């Protein structure tokens, strides 16, 4: 996979020297990663290694203490989730971030509702759009008028994914997107990632499953205790090499 990525141009995202601390604990300590168009970069590490925290600086959920973010080579100011959305950064959170009491369409358009000419929310049009995109992502999905609390884990996941995909994301952040899914739905997410790659999106994928990272990602960035252990081409290292990086923080010799 990795040889098809052109990394000679400007990276889509460059996070440079990012640091963030919570009450004296350095959750992320001078970490730099980048992401190119059409590339999937896996973020690996133990619980508490800082991968979710790092990525939340990009999605606007946290404000970093130090460091810079460049989008397409330009310095980006991301102070809140609205800023991130302006840079076409979409996030699928591990918790899915769905309002359980609202239906699928309301969740999909939350914060970006379609409105009628007089400024009222246009529920019918939003439901029609939702039916269209869900028909593509998860044709089995039928419960359009039920609150999402009545949906299964896989259905909820597809609502969260639809929300990220619908708004023409250029940069997609997926925080353990398959953690709650069965094998068939996991396959669905993998196919979707491949399709989005072909469309030229850049994807950060946080995952615990090393085999899945080997399969889905082009590069893997491994973190431990808030620091970056290293970034490797997944095709040039073995599963054991990656596990050594996660567990011992050891960078394999052959990787650049």
């Amino acid at each position: 996979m990795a040889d098809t990525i052109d990394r000679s141009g400007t990276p889509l995202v460059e996070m440079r020297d990012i640091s963030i601390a919570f009450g004296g604990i350095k959750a992320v300590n001078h970490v730099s990663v980048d992401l190119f168009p059409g590339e999937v970069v896996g973020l690996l590490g133990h619980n508490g290694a800082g991968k979710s925290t790092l990525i939340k600086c990009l999605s606007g959920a946290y404000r970093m203490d130090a460091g810079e973010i460049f989008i397409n080579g330009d310095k980006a100011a991301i102070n809140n989730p609205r800023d991130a959305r302006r840079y076409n950064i979409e996030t699928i959170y591990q918790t899915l971030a769905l309002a359980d009491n609202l239906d699928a369409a309301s969740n999909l358009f939350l914060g970006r509702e379609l409105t009628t000419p007089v400024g009222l929310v246009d529920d019918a049009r939003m439901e029609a759009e939702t039916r269209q995109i869900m028909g593509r992502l998860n044709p089995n999905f039928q419960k359009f008028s039920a609150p999402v609390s009545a949906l299964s884990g896989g259905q909820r996941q597809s609502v969260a994914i639809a929300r990220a995909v619908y708004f023409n994301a250029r940069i997609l952040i997926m925080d353990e997107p398959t953690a709650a899914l069965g094998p068939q739905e996991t396959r669905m997410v993998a196919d979707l990632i491949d399709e989005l790659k072909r469309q030229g999106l850049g994807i950060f994928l946080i995952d615990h499953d090393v085999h899945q990272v080997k399969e889905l990602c082009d590069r893997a960035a491994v973190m431990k205790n808030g620091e970056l252990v290293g970034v490797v081409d997944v095709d040039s290292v073995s599963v054991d090499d990656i596990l050594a990086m996660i567990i011992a923080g050891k960078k394999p010799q052959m990787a650049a």
Partner: protein
Amino acid sequence: MSDSPALPKAAPGMRNLARTLEIDTRLLGMIGAFIALCLVFHFLTDGRFLTPRNIFNLTIQTVSVGIMATGMVFVIVTRHIDLSVGSLLATCSAMMAMTQTLVTPEWLGLGLNHPLTAPAAIVVGLGTGIVIGAFHGWLIGYLGIPAFIVTLGGLLVWRNVAWYLTNGQTIGPLDGNFQLFGGIGGTLGETWSWVFGLICAAAALYAIWQSRRNKISHDFPVKPLWAEIALGALVTAAILGFIAILNAYQIPERRLERMFEARGEVLPEGFTAGYGLPISVLLLIAVAVTMTIIANRTRLGRYIFATGGNPDAAELSGINTRLLTVKVFIMMGILCAISAVVASSRQTFHSNDIGTLDELRVIAAAVIGGTALAGGVGTIYGAILGALIMQSLQSGMAMVGVDAPFQNIVVGTVLVVAVLIDTIYRKRTGD
């Protein structure tokens, strides 16, 4: 992909019918409980409960709590509470009373019953509500003090600000035009009540038709045409029936004589007139429609419910939940001011104890109406129906002659039982 939890087996016929008509079964249950309550009181009072006169009185007694209950729905939906509404009502009422008895007639030299007095007083009242509501919202949203504490403090503070403003005196009589909002002192009369009723019925029918057309244009499933027509007929009958009842309450002959005398005329032989729709009830209807549109059809409403359902998700979706808290409490403040207009003009003066214990009635109305204290769930019509049920219970017991302590014991018990039934209902249906 699991299916929704199994529905209870009981009464599948009714449930299917309700589903075909797309009627909320909870709403049906509340209306059923209300009708049962009315019938029981009607029987116990030997037919004095469901008379035009008593229904008229019930509606005007419900208005003040009903208006505030619609705002309390938003407050509770966003996982807050407001214990200060009764005191806030008192402060708004005190400000308006001082404006119309001291500021405009004396300081501005406009004299009594000047046409500008009532509007000026109402503007002052609304301003007071907005400022205090915004202040509460800022303390809660931006400084992070729990709403329970802020409004518990507010309960004491605003009650006594009202006292200080008026030196504890009763201020009255209030301006003549201002008193039109009080209920029996200001009604539309029979003709205009019918006009209003017909406009409402037409608007309701148009809304039903429009919603059906909209669904068809997007190829969504629609309910059968007969169901749509039945629903329209039911709504029309309810609106026009309500107007007919209010019109049937006749103005007493003595009062008619005085009205004609005031105009320098003599009451013609056999002349009668009904009161019709009170302006205060018109105000409640306007508030209910506005709040329902805000809840269901605006971004603000969508964000209120999203924040109540999952504050973190709302924040991550780019919603400014702090500012939203301020907006919710500003709305509550405005509604307290409107209620203050109705409450003070209904008693024709401002008194030191106005609105006492209203916070409990308002919260109870919202909760009986199906607003969940856990947040995210609640309806405007439910809260108003809740206020109506509370008021019916109270005045029904008074008419039957239940002792005062027992009245409050029953109201308190009903509140707890209503929430228990609601909890069981939610568990059964998986809502």
